[in-house]
Structures are given as C-alpha cells and as structure tokens.
C-alpha cells in the first residue's frame, strides 16, 4: 500500500470539529488520510508542538479554529501569533511552510472545510512526505523541538 500523506486536523469544538460533523451529515467525501482531533482552542499549542508533529511524520497540519466566532477571548489571536512564529522555524528546518495552515471554519462551513482538506491533500501529493524534506536538509535543531519533552 502506497504511503499516503498524513493530514492532522486540529479542530475546535465550537468551529472546525462541528464543521466536520456537518460535512458528515451531508455525506460529502474527502480523503481518508485526514485525522481530526478535537481542541477547545488552538492557543493551547506552543510552537514546538507543531514542529514535533512534523518531526514524527505528520505531513500537513490544518488548524481549523473558530476565528472571530471563538467563544474564547484572545484565543484566536494568540493561536495566529504562535503559528506565525512557527513558519520561520519550519523554514529553518527545511519544512515547506504550506504544510501548516490556520483556517477559520464555522459549525456549518462545509464548503470551506472540504476546500481546505482537498487543497492540503493536493499540496502534499505534490510535496511528498515531510520526512523526505526534513532528511534532505542539514541537521535540524532537535534541541528546540525537544526542549519540552
């Protein structure tokens, strides 16, 4: 079986997770290599959480937060700030920054959900596995990545 890219979807219960359930209600198909984890607010995840996930072999991460509809004050802004700080760190490690995307998905945003998932999947088909990217660059800096372990 050919290895399919693995897409991790961190989806807020008040946004993306509910949106994914709405997609299910409509029985709209999307690729199966998509793994949705529920989150309260993605401002929980520090920078190295994302780097660590790529290091473990997650090929793409979609953070589906609730944007301005978030019930958590300041959470969306903070999540965006963190993710903006992750991009240069990804670059440093030779990881294509398009592998990480923050998108606002509401409880009924079925169209945007499907679009994001399909686009990420297409992109990852084109980019190939994250492992290859990482191994083709000079030594990454595992120290930063693992400082939290």
């Amino acid at each position, binding site marked *: 079986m050919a290895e399919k890219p693995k897409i991790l979807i961190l989806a807020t219960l008040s946004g993306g997770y509910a949106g994914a359930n709405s997609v299910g209600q409509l029985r*709209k198909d999307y690729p199966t290599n998509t793994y949705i984890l529920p989150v309260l*607010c993605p401002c929980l995840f520090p*920078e190295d959480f994302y780097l660590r996930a790529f290091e473990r072999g997650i090929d793409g991460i979609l953070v589906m937060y609730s944007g301005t*509809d978030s019930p958590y004050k300041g959470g969306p802004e903070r999540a965006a700030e963190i993710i903006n700080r992750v991009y240069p760190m990804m670059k440093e490690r030779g990881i294509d920054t398009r592998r990480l995307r923050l998108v606002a998905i509401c409880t009924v945003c079925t169209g945007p959900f499907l679009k994001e998932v399909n686009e990420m999947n297409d992109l990852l088909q084109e980019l190939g596995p994250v492992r290859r990217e990482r191994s083709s660059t000079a030594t990454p800096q595992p120290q930063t990545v693992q400082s939290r372990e």
Partner: protein
Amino acid sequence: MPETSEIRRQKDSQSNPQGEEIRIGVYTCHCGGNISDVVRCEKVAKVLSEMPNVVVSRTHMAMCSDAGQAMVEEDIRERGVNRVVIGACAPSLHEQTFRRTVARAGLNPYLYYHVCLREQDSWVSGGDCEGATEKAIRLMAAGIAKARHLKALDPIRLDAKQRALVIGGGVAGLRSAWDIARRGIQVTLIEKSPFLGGRMAQLETTFPAGETARELLHDLIERVLAHPNVTVHTRAELVGVRGYVGDFHVQIRRQSRGVSDDFAQAQAEAAIAACPVEVPDEFNYGLTTRKAIYRAYPGCTPATPAIDWENCTLCGKCLQVNGQGIDLENKPETFEINVGAVVVATGFRPYEPRQGEYGYGEFPEVVTLPQLIRLLALAGESEGLEWNGHPVRNIAMIHCVGSRQIEGIHEPQPDGQVNDYCSRVCCTATLHLANELRGRFPNVNVFDVYQDIRTYGRGHEDYYTQASANMVRFLRFHAEEPPEVVPAPDGDSCPVLVKIKDYLTWGEEIEVPVDLVVLAVGIMPRPIDDLIKMLKISPGTDRFLLEVHPKLRPVETAVPGIVLAGTAQGPMNIQESCAAASAAAAKVAVLLGQGLVELEPFVARVDPERCRGSGQCVEVCCYEDAISLQTFSVNGREVQRAVVTPANCTGCGACVSACPNRAIDVQGWTLEQYEAMVDAIAADLPASEVGV
C-alpha cells in the same frame, strides 16, 4: 502562606493512584451499518486488541443501546477495565451517554474518551473501505494513546447563590424573570429605560394570531411585578461584575426617576402639560414629540412619569403644579447584589437607514416599518390615512432594508460589516401591515416590493395568501438591482416614484407613483459594548451575542452562568423570544436549583513543582482572576507560583503555550495527551495491519 508540598499533596490526592495498571477497554460501534458498511469494524477491533494496555476490544451493533452499554459496564466490573474508548457517532451525540455508563460502573467519567467514526470517517469516505478502515484504526489508536494519559477528574463544584440577574425588561427579560421566579429562585430585573416592555410595547396588533401586543405585555408585566421573588429596577444599568457562576457580584447603577411613586395621576398630567420642553418621542420613532417629564405611552408601567435628565432644563415649571413628589435633582445610586446567574435580554434596535438610502432622510415620504406601525396607531379611527398633511392613496413597502446585504453592493455599517443576515420578522410584519392597510383603508393601494418572501412560521404564510387576496400588488427585485426612490416629475399626482426592475414580469422596468414609501427595516442588536466587555461574552460577526453551540447549547454563552434571551441573540419574533427566554430560565433553574453548580473540570492546572513563577501565563490570560501569581514558601524561601481559580478559567489553554517550563496544562486536554495522539496517528502500522 501555603507550602508547595501541601499543594502537591492536594494534586496527588486527585490524580490516579501511583503505579495503577492501565487496562483499556476499546469498543468499535457498527452504528447499525452506518459505520460498518464502510469501516471493517471487526478488523479494527482485532488490530486494536493487540495494542499495549488494551485488555478488551469489542464491536457492537449499537453501543448506545442498553446491551452495548451493559457490555462496557460488565467489562469495568468484571475485567478490571479502568479506561474506556468508544468509537461511534459524533461525541456531541453520545459522549455524555457513555460518561454516564462508565460512572454507573463505578469508574470516574473522565476516564472515558470518545472517537468519532461516523460523521468524520464512514460518512465521508465514500466507498474507500480500505482507507476508512485504516483511518478508523489510527483514530482509535490515538484515542487509546490519550486514554493511557487520562486522569480521574472531578467536576468543579461551587455553592450557587439563589438569585439571578435579568438584564433588559423587554418581553424576553420579563418572560425569563417570571419563569425563574416561579421555580423559587429570586430574580432582580434591571431595565435601562424608565419603562418596562421594550419594543413589543411599540407594536399594535401582532402576527401570527392578531393579538394586541400591549395587552399580552401588560398581563406579563403584572404577573412579574406581583411575584414575591422578583425585584425590578428601572433606569438601572450594570456597571461592574466580579466573580463567577454561582457567585457573581454585580454592581448596578440606578438613576432617579425624579417623580415619586405616590404622585397622583391628575397631578402627573398637569405637570407633564406644564413642561415647556419638546423632544422627539422615541416611542413613536420621532413622529411626535414628548415632554421632558413624560410617560412612554398611556397605560405604561410603571405609571409614574419620569424625568428625562438629558433634556430637562430644570426650569421648575412642573414643580409649580405641585412640587411635592417631584425632585429635580438626579441622584444616581450604585449598589451591589450577589447572583448565581445572569440572563442577558438587551434586545434589538430597528436598522436606521443611511441618509439617502431609498430616499430616507431626503424625502419626507420615506418612513420605516416601525414608524408606519406608530403612524397607524396615531391615526386612530380616522377614515383616511394622511401623511405630511396629504392624503395617502398609494404606498410602496420595500423589504430587506438593512438585511441580507451583500458586500460590494451595500454600504457597510460603521464597523465595516454588512448585515448579511435575514431579519426574519420583517416579511410577515410587512404583510401583516399591508393587510391592515387594505382592511382599514380600502382605497389605499399597497405595492409590496420584495426580494423573497420569507413567511417561515406557523400561520405566517396566511398573511401572504391574505395579502394576495387583498389585492396587495407584488413586485420582485434582485439584490443587485435594488429599487430606486426618486422625486416624481412636477404635476404628478404623487410626490415620489419607486422605480423597480420587476422580475415577476421578466425584468420589466416599472415606475410606481406613491405617497408613502415604507422601508421594512431589519433588526440589529442594541449597542451593548460595555456590557459585553464586563460580562466577557462574545458577539458574532453579525454583532448579535453568541451561544456556545446553536443546536446543543443554545442560549448558553461560553461564560458559565451567563445565558441569553430574546433578540439580543439574533432576529426573533415574540414567540421565539419567549421560547428563548424560557430556555434561558430553565438553564438558570437547572444551574442554581441544586444549590451547587458543577462545572466541567477542563481548566488549567499548575504543577507547582515545575512552575518557576515566570508569570507569562498571567500575562497571556484574557480572563480576569483566572490565574495569578501567589507567594509560597519553599524551604524557607519565598517564591512566586501561578495559581488558577478554576471557576474563572475557561480552559482556552493560552497559558499552556506560554509557559516556558511546561508547568501548566488544561486538565482533560493536556499537551502530553495530544502528543501521544499525534504519535499514534503518525506511527507506522505493523505489517499485519497493512492491507486492511
């Protein structure tokens, strides 16, 4: 000053006994074929059974059935299962069911994890059985990984004050107050204006049953005022809030009424007549004027007039009629009350058209629907309808003004957003008035200019049918080509023309000469920015207040103990406002009824041994009093450590990502759990699992 070891002991007493063997029970539900038609459940169960810590792995036709639940309970009791993972439908449907199942068997309900295999796998994977099965295995493996790190948690229990605050004395606030009071809970209702009833008092007959708004309202107001559990303050506003669900300390500022309650009726009339000030009367949407000492309308509650402090010139003319009972000094007072829950019922305001929008503010012949209602009320029994000194024979009513706006076509509101929502009540209200006009003034022609007719409620469609039968003429425009209101050429019988590209006649350009244009303006929330900030609740992009979940937790805000009622939450008619208000009251009653409030334990928790007191968590936290630095003594040395106040923490996790020492986590959603889940998803499946 507490010792850190003391906190440590408290922490340990709540976590799992050291060295406990983790025994996970894993269950893959067929969901009667919903899952198993696509996912090979037996295969999933077999693969999972070989994973570390898994002691039983089973499938069932319907895990939520009595038999399915009994199976889990038996495994907990008989086989020592102490963590449970179920893969089934969306957690929003049955997570709570299975938490209860687990608790019934004596296990802590938070030692349960729910995986969605239906909405997020079998229903979205088409015929890709292989892919869907692999996905199910990985998702379940992630659930198992999380389960290994689950800790027993206790809901947060707090004493609840047996009083609720209702903000807003419109129909929704009144209805909530009445329902809460009847459940034996004290209620304080505060209304900003001097009179009760809100916008409903400004209506006359109402759809759908044609009842008179003020009769219904007065009946409700009387019941509320007579109830021993209710205290009402008019002219009162919230100015401060501290605390949390079960124990909010709210500060209320009340302005003087200026007139004492025992002021006699006859004297009141004379005092009002004596006042020389005339200002536009907001009750009649500026169609008439009122005095600076005034009543909202005849028969309003309270009946005692009030002084409008903004417009009163302190001339003292009213005092000359009878000085006793009138005090021309506004002495606002601020007081604090302690409440367990808050109902926000601050209502709506009609959309105010822009200067020049469909001729509004340019031509006196252009009015709004709420103004038409007042105009018809003021017309009383008169046989003909007059406006601006002229008889009215032709009326155009334009729908969707300030609603269903489209970016790029409509000018945005001051905040940059267009009102893209449907205001829901205006279609039926317009048709209701069109019928009233045709009934009361048969010589008046009514042209109904609409985009779509949305008479969605029970009995509402009758208004459309009746309007058609009543010879109301319908013209239909497209949003991109809205009608225009222009002055009629000199000598025309009517002052203005409404120009419409009418799609009922395949795009014919039609000009309708009319005497009055009525704009069916939409509903917008009242500006309550201060209140939003104080209560820390959130508006949506449409500016209406946001509930946690429209289906599963309607009327609840993300702030525990604060609920919504009526049009503060979105466009609603009276029936819907009252339904929402009763729902809000039920939430309050459930919350406070037991004397204790229970909160989900998903709040931040500090590990005092890792905490170095950097304070970054306190800096990033957006919630007041949720996390703070406190001084502790460690080996005789004073140190700062972060301390969470669980009742104020929402569990957003901002502090988790901010902590440089990884000393803080959101219970039930820890980083360690997430990392384990990611690892499980990323892991290569053993050879035996490939080729599912």
